[in-house]
């Protein structure tokens, strides 16, 4: 069970799209796999609800940032696997630089102000 004191982080729509694209950078993955990977790489802090994940995946597919293929899993189950497209990669690059800038700014805001800045 998750640590109940660790409240789930609410994700903005754009953020989820970015995280999904980011996840797909390491190779094609199905929806469940993406959810698991996000949870694992955030140390359980990020839990993507199916009600957000699938709309996001279908939205990204519609924007042609990811492509979807049906594959047969080892269990014999039909699964839909999402792959990052070239357009998706480009979008990810833009988003990444935006995110880096944003996190630098946020990080700056978190630091106590220096005397000279006051």
């Amino acid at each position: 069970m998750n640590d109940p004191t660790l409240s789930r982080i609410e994700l903005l729509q754009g953020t989820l799209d970015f995280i999904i694209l980011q996840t797909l950078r390491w190779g094609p993955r199905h929806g469940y796999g993406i959810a698991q990977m996000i949870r694992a790489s955030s140390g359980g802090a990020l839990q993507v609800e199916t009600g957000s994940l699938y709309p996001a995946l279908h939205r990204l597919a519609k924007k042609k940032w990811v492509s979807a293929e049906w594959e047969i899993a080892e269990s014999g189950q039909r699964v839909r696997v999402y792959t990052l497209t070239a357009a998706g990669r480009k979008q990810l690059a833009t988003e990444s630089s935006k995110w880096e800038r944003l996190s630098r700014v946020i990080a700056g805001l978190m630091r106590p102000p220096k005397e000279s800045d006051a």
Partner: protein
Amino acid sequence: MKRPSLRDRDARDRDLDDELRAHFAMAVADRIARGESPHDALAAAQREFGNITHVKEVTREMWGGAWIERLAQDARYAVRVLRRSPVFALTSIATLALGIGVTTAMFTVVRSVLLRPLPFAAPNELYVVAHEPDRLLEVFGDAMPDHEYAAFARAARTFSATAAYRTYPGTLLGAGEPARLPIAAVSPSFFATLGVRPRSGNVFASTADQPGADNVAIISASLARERFGADAAAIGRWITLDGYRKRVIGVMPEGFEFPRRPAVWVPLGENRDPKNTRMETVIARMSPSATVAQADAELHAFVSNEERKPVPYRREHAYTRIIPLRDQLVGDVRTPLVMFSLAVGIVLLIACANTANLTLMRATTRRHELAIRTSIGASRGRLVRQLLTETFVIAAAGGVVGLALAFAGVRFLLAVLPPGLLPRTNEVHVDPVAIGAAALAIFAAAALSGIVPAVVASRRDPREALGDAGRTVARAPLRKLFVAVEVGLSLVLLVGAGLMIRSFERVRGIDLGFTPRSLATATLDFPETRYRTTESVQNASSAILNRLSAIPGVWSASVVNWMPLDSAYIAGDFSRRDGPAVPDNYMVLKPCVSANYFATMGMHVREGRGFLPSDVAGAEPVVVISESMARALWPNGGAIGQLLTFANLPGARDWMRIVGIVDDVVHGDPRDTPMPALYRPIAQVKELFFVNHLTFVVRTNGDPSAVIGMMRPAIHAVDPEQPIASIASMDAELRATIAEPRFRSFVLIAFSIMALVMAGVGMYGVLAYAVSERTREFGIRLALGAEPRAIVRLIGTTTAAATVPGLVVGIAAALGAARLLTRFLFEVPPTDPFAFGGATGVLLAAAFVAAIGPARRAARVDPTIAMK
């Protein structure tokens, strides 16, 4: 982008299903692999996954085009839900059908009559130009003397074309059965001014108004169809109109019925005699470069120039004006149509308020369903959408039924419409624009009656609804507001109808001065070509009177030249031998009657005697005067025996002796004050002009309808070629003269009844619901020893609380609205307490009736059942 087809969507739906299933299966498998028991794994995975329907729904929304599917789905669901509550559905549909139906029907009429352009070329350039003595306005409408028109047509610079016309009834021979038809005498420029062409043949040549060239006629499409079959058969045919032979040279297109639906157009001869005071309507097409102000200035300059010319008669004060042709055509009907439009607007509003109320109540009873839908993940917007879709389905169904009602309603309206009350009725029909208006009404109705209930219903907290449903006492202020609105609006209509009924009763109660019951009339015109002398008409009239008297069931037969209810009459002046001169403007009616006319009509001879069979051509000329004339000229009595004359320079034989005084009778519109009258025995009349239009009046022993059928053969036995203008009972003639107020009352009453029924349904709904919601409370009260009567009183209070505010607001609104009706009210003030009291009483009675059922149910609540 291409929208995926429904088949694609089905495949995508299955794919999505598979995708989510796989996700779920993998989650369960992972948990089992981590060592959870299959049971726990399933439960945990389910919790984690959430509501699969919701996930599908939000994912599908990403596909685009989902709104169509959702709409279809909502509509399907709405239909299913509505079928489960047929009473609600049918009541709402019927209510909205009525509202939309009357709105569409009225819109159709208003548009055809008031809004659609006249069927002429560039109709906005057409004006009516008038210059006439003030006192003639009532008789001729906007008009101009014949000789002035010719001068004006030559002088006008601001008008590119001018035309004059007159209409009158004429006798048609030579085309089947003799007939009395409306004729329009028009100047040769008439058709060119309007910019219309005949459908076959030609218009009048510019010389057609000259003697010798005027033996031509153009006929209407309906006359061509009825009398000749085809245009080709009509063109070139010779017909006889009022004794003049005319060759048909053209047939006008279907629907061209200007002015006043004539069957035949003939050239209007120019009469240069300046003494002639024949009046004509003058229409003119304004030059595109000219303005109304310029035209006005030109007309005033022309008129002041004309008025400086010497004339052999006294100049009277005359008015001058230029008005758009459309205003002249629809002027009289605009106000009633606006009034009716307001009334239908009110009906539609009430229908919407009613549906809103029903929807609101139903939303409350559906609280449970809505709460479940909210708790399984339906968003509030989704619920509002769903509820609005339901209202829309109702409104659409109501609209379809309403459109059918509108079709039927317009037909019905045209059938019951008194002829001549509305212009352009031939152009009234439900068309695509009207259907568009109905569609608009549907949207308006759905929005008006759906939004508030949908928002209110979706606002509820599901926990409350699911938890202690039925325990809360809903005060429902919105529902009471809707009922108040319905009551108030209904009151406005009821007051309007009440005022109309009161006014109509007054009109019916008018003392006509004669007894119309059991009277039958036949009106004939004696064309000059066949009856050249007064004697010939007098002989024919006596012969016809003899035949009519012989009909079984006829008690007495008499004749008069212009009967009391006729809109036309002969009036004029006279002088008296002794006493002060008769005032200049004192005019009297000059009826000519047979000896037993007063007895036949049921008029009382107050003093002296009526006419006798001995009052013939050679005997002393005698007259009988009406009471008001006697009072005006001989206020101290002594009228009997006095001598009067119509002649300017009377000779010895021109004096007529007053031998009697009779009751005043109304003439034309019963609402007008009776004009003084001076009766002469028809046998002593010398001028043909006084006798070539005669109405034979017979008093029957009972029902005149039996006699009416035998009057035509009696007349044709004397002259088989004699056209008969009309045969009718006097009651029917009377009904025709009051057809307009009757029609207005009828329409307003019909609307009021609709409003009343809807308001009643609304009140019933609110009360029935209030009772069902408070069943538990009533049960407790009864269990604690409350008298059932107290419960009934409680319902009474609730009824009053829902009704009285509406009544108060309604009375205030009605006081304002009634002022619009002032013009149509006869001897009834717009604040008539009986109309207001009656309307309030009717609504209170409706509220009482609506309350009976719920009150009885409340009093019969079984405490043991209610409190379980």
